[in-house]
């Protein structure tokens, strides 16, 4: 693929930001661009991106598949696959504008599609699992093709460049979402590859991530046992899959998933009430290889809201703020103040302490 995929693990520092309107009211991408742009110095122009939830109300029942292609051959091969396995309602180029600082983009395309009913029953899979496997199949086996996002009523817009330029490039001011997350990337070694920018996604899950996961090797091999193919040599991809595994496949509550990825210390578990202790012990025993170790702050986006989380000893920054309708989360407080000068509440979560922003009425997702 153009700029080629990394063959070794990518290390990076970053800026992240997210805005949720808890009432589900949608707003344009301008604010998230302003917020992430403020942290310009935390990126180096080698990657920027956005996840937006609620942007495709007219196709909200369809899987919105965003694709990068290196060339038309790749596009043709993937479309052949998609046509065989999906019923495609719409296939179109994602609108972009010429931006000076953005060069050499891939072919960027999107599809609104549903799994082919016949195939579904043939494999005996739920449609989300079918989509997930298809995504990993394309990413692993189709040279020159990359699935950027695959959820419903959401999409990811990313590329090589500073995030504000990427936002400009994708005309994000024209989209309206109730949840935006954004990422500015500072990789230390990577070639400029569009697929390598954040957010990473699977189905509805999107991750923006600042940090480096020292446990990546363990997490990756653990995921592989469940059929995940970590093809991008990045911990962010692995984090995405971990959440997919626990939340979607194992039906864990967000709270339990947090106890796995940012597990309480054994000394803390020791002090818990018996029932809580038993559960926490079981989670660490079973999901030990899901523990994310090393410095990170992440925002996990989802159709119901977001989870922001630091590593358990807080080695990366994360700030949260709230006003009447919205919850903000960012690497730096200034990035929040830039778009909400007088929040009602601002705080810095402790290491391992999850910050949950959910749409009103969706609180049961937590526990």
């Amino acid at each position, binding site marked *: 693929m153009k700029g080629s995929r990394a063959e070794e693990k990518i290390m990076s520092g970053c800026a992240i930001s997210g805005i949720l309107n808890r009432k589900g009211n949608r707003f344009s991408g301008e604010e998230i661009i302003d917020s992430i742009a403020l942290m310009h110095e935390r990126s180096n122009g080698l990657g920027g991106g956005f996840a937006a939830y609620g942007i495709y109300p007219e196709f909200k029942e369809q899987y919105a598949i965003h694709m990068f292609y290196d060339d038309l051959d790749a596009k043709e091969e993937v479309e052949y696959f998609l046509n065989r396995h999906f019923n495609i309602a719409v296939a179109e180029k994602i609108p972009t504008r010429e931006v000076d600082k953005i060069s050499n983009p891939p072919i960027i395309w999107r599809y609104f599609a549903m799994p082919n009913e016949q195939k579904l029953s043939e494999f005996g899979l739920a449609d989300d699992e079918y989509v997930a496997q298809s995504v990993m199949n394309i990413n692993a086996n189709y040279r020159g093709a990359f699935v950027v996002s695959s959820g419903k009523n959401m999409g990811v817009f990313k590329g090589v460049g500073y995030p504000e330029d990427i936002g400009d490039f994708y005309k994000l001011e024209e989209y309206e979402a109730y949840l935006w997350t954004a990422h500015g990337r500072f990789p230390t070694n990577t070639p400029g590859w569009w697929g390598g920018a954040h957010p990473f996604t699977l189905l509805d899950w999107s991750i923006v991530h600042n940090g480096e996961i020292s446990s990546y090797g363990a997490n990756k091999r653990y995921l592989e046992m*469940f059929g995940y193919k970590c093809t991008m040599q990045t911990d962010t991809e692995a984090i995405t899959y971990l959440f997919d595994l626990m939340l979607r496949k194992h039906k864990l509550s967000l709270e339990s998933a947090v106890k796995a990825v940012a597990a309480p210390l054994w000394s803390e578990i020791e002090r818990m009430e018996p029932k809580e202790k038993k559960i926490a012990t079981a989670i660490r025993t079973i999901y030990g*290889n899901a523990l994310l*170790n090393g410095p990170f702050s992440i925002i996990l986006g989802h159709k119901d809201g977001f989870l922001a989380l630091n590593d358990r000893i807080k080695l990366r920054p994360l700030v949260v703020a709230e006003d009447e309708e919205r919850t903000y989360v960012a690497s730096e407080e200034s990035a929040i103040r830039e778009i909400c000068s007088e929040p009602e509440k601002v705080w810095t979560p402790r290491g391992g302490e999850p910050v949950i922003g959910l749409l009103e009425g969706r609180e049961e997702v937590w526990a």
Partner: protein
Amino acid sequence: MGLDYNIPEFIIERDQDRCIDCQVCQHQCANQVHAYDQDLEKMVAQDIDCVNCHRCVTLCPTNALIIRENPSEYKKNKNWTGNMIENIQKQAATGGILLTGMGNPTAKKIYWDHILLNASQVTNPSIDPLREPMELKTFLGRKPDQIEFDDNGELKDLPPQLELDIPIMFGAMSFGSISINACKSLAKAASDLGLMYNTGEGGLHQDLYQYGQRTIVQVASGRFGVHNEYLNAGAAVEIKVGQGAKPGIGGHLPGEKVGAEVSKTRMIPKGSDALSPAPHHDIYSIEDLRQLIYALKEATDYKKPVSVKIAAVHNVAAIASGIASAGADIIAIDGYRGGTGAAPTMIRDNVGIPVELALAAVDDRLRQEGLRKNVSLVVSGSIRNSADIVKAVALGADAVYIASAALISLGCHMCQKCYTGKCNWGIATQRPELVKRLNPEVGAQRVKNLITGWSHEIKEILGGMGINALESLRGNRLMLRGIDLTEKELEILGIKHAGK
């Protein structure tokens, strides 16, 4: 036979200016090497009987003793080395098989030494274990794929787990092959440290029942000392199929080591040879193994994990996979450098494969089959230091068994004469006057010191990697790089070469 064609292996040098004729060396040598000569009025030594166990050297209060390899050299010959010649002389004199103790000493590649560890620089911080929590806790036992709650939202109990505060256990060494004081040292150390020790095929001496929660009781082909109380006294049961030092052959505890206590514990007549058959005569197939695993689970009311220990041999990955499917909760793999109380030299030095390669292959295979997340993997067979442990865990092990290292901490100086029963350090012996040389309180403390030291080192290494919990190291082969390894070796180990 007349002339002994062998020359002394070691030469004892005594500095007469230092020697004070205190005769400590004489009192301490079970091989009766040292003696005070009344006529010469000085200490003298019988070099040919010396096994170089260093007991006398260590206890000599004036450091008057030095033991050297006999400098007499054979004519240079890369093929017919001195060692080869001596072995032939021994057999020509006795007609017996060559016996030996402890692990394989030959100069074959030690893969641990060709694997290097990673550390964090800049992009992720290393963690200082003196300031930050550093967790080494590990659970061994069968894990479900996912956490499960019942209809009332109550957590379903996990299958039985062994909780280890440090991913180290003391490997199987039977009472009989080692002394009761050695057993007590290990059992007490395991209890105090929150680890496990393993009874080996020696039954459980009554004094050791108190350490039951830290005991893995072994069931081997001789079934010595196995009864219901025994099975239920420990926290886990291990079926020993094979041993790294002597894959494919059984065990032999000579009758002179079967004293009253060993006899009672093993439930065999006093003075009789304890012969463990090469195979379990109720396991001729994987389905037989499954039956035994479930028989033991039945006997222990499904409250104890069952481990299956095998020697690392050529098709170890497939065997391990079969064992996992047969219902074992823990698989223990013993590499060809593993120790033994007694083994035929030719077997020990030529049968089996390195545990590093076996571990990598087994971990890979179990992952390919999706079984690794369910079954625990323990490796052994010459884990020599904390770095070996870190490498083993990164290659994919949950924990390690150490045995030789533990015995060394008790005083063993690797003379490899365990099979003679005359261990001057009170370890591999049943002679009361030698057994009491190992004070189990001192022994337990020394073992604990060793493990404490190792655990500090493991924490330092983990911290350097930017990891603060052991589970993030398990199977994390990105933390490893190879040097001086071929592409094939790197491929099997699943690691990159240094520089990549």
